[in-house]
């Protein structure tokens, strides 16, 4: 985080690369659909690394054949939550997997203040560390 230029959030696939273009997102979603995975759109304003479960935007999209439908939903989510993190996950329901197989960010706030490291002194000079999002100091909904 300290060495991450501009405090860009790096979670999920492709997060060290420049933001994906719509055509690139479409290609990734097409891949997920061809694998038979259900694609979901999720958003959050609390991107703490341990915050695994983001809010879902609409229902998971089962039975889709074409990425155009997912793009519709992504655009709607970006419009509603323009200044939130939005990610796309692809869920594999195959027995044995039953887990998201892909996850990447498709929208981020203009300003990303990043995280700070909190050190807490415990008994016997033991140090405890935790990660704290600067944005999370403000109440939910006003963070970005």
């Amino acid at each position, binding site marked *: 985080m300290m060495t991450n230029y501009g405090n860009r959030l790096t979670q999920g696939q492709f997060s060290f690369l420049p933001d994906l273009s719509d055509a690139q997102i479409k*290609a990734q979603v*097409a891949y997920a659909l061809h694998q038979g995975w259900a694609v979901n759109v999720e958003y959050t304003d609390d991107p703490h690394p341990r915050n695994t479960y983001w809010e879902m935007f609409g229902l998971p999209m089962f*039975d889709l*054949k074409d990425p*155009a*439908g997912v793009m519709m939903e992504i655009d709607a989510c970006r419009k509603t939550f323009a200044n939130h993190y939005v990610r796309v996950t692809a869920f594999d329901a195959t027995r044995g997997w039953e887990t998201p197989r892909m996850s990447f960010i498709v929208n981020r706030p203009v300003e990303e203040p990043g995280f700070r490291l909190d050190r807490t002194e415990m008994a016997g000079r033991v140090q405890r560390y935790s990660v704290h999002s600067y944005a999370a100091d403000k109440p939910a909904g006003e963070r970005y």
Partner: protein
Amino acid sequence: MSITTIDRPSPLPRAGEGGAPAPGEGAPFTDRVPSPGPDGPPSPACGRGQSSTNLEPASGENAQDLRALYEQTGIAEVLAQLDDELIGLAPVKERIAEIAAYLIVDKARRAQGLRTGAPSLHMCFTGNPGTGKTTVAQRMADILHRLGYIRNHQLVSVTRDDLVGQYIGHTAPKTREVLKKAMGGVLFIDEAYYLYRPENERDYGQESIEILLQVMENQRDDLVVILAGYKSRMDVFFQSNPGMASRIAHHIDFPDYSADELLEIANLMVSRIDYRFDADAASAMRDYIERRMRQAHFANARSIRNALDRARLRQAARLFRSAMKARSGDAGREALMTIEGRDIRASRVFSNPVTATAER
């Protein structure tokens, strides 16, 4: 709602075949969408280089061989199949051949780098019940897929129930859900005039129509919408929704079948399920069709199919009764296949006066 995936090509190899897939494995990082260009016509310069490569004759000359394109895409087979499977419907077949020709020419123009607007492919099929609207819509999906105007070979068939919700705020998500599922293919809206109910001004159908219109206009590359319904009621529907009428380029009217055509259809139907008429049954069937056509609730080919279903029922009962009586219980292959005249003549159509309304 029913989703018919007629034939699903597998453009990418599935993960897990040959070697364990890496967790979180994604597609190769690429700018290219693995589908035939939804981004509109390529510029002349790149059009020559990319999209024309597989359309041109091997010599690489400039001329577009329409015949080769026609044969390559397999449109001929679809049209021939249409001809075989559907009796009559001459004007419909003509229109479909026209549309196919237009699309082929459009494709050739594109390959030549000529400017072409994205063709508007939304259609409206009007006609009485049982005239083959759904079947033709399926063939249409076939044609559009072969020419690359839709990416998925699927037809999503919906009615008002699938699009319109029951309370405020229910309609939009429902309609969007259906649209998302149909993306990249054909959305077939049966009895489309039910979407608009003029007698109830608070009906949610209007909301659904607005969302449909928006997608029909903005995502012409992604979705082809086919509306179907009775002629007179669709006319009313279009009058009250001029936006819808102007966005639909192709109006195809399905004529009613003549008695001869219906008899031919009956023959085709029985032969397809390994039955046959004996000589008496054939003339009984002709009689039946003529009487049935004059009665109420006549639904063209669908009525014929129902009549045949009932004839098969009677044939089975007849065979069973005679087997019980004879105590031998043998039924020859021939007997099992044959529908006799009395199986058809037992129908109530023959006993009722012509004005009767019940379809029996």
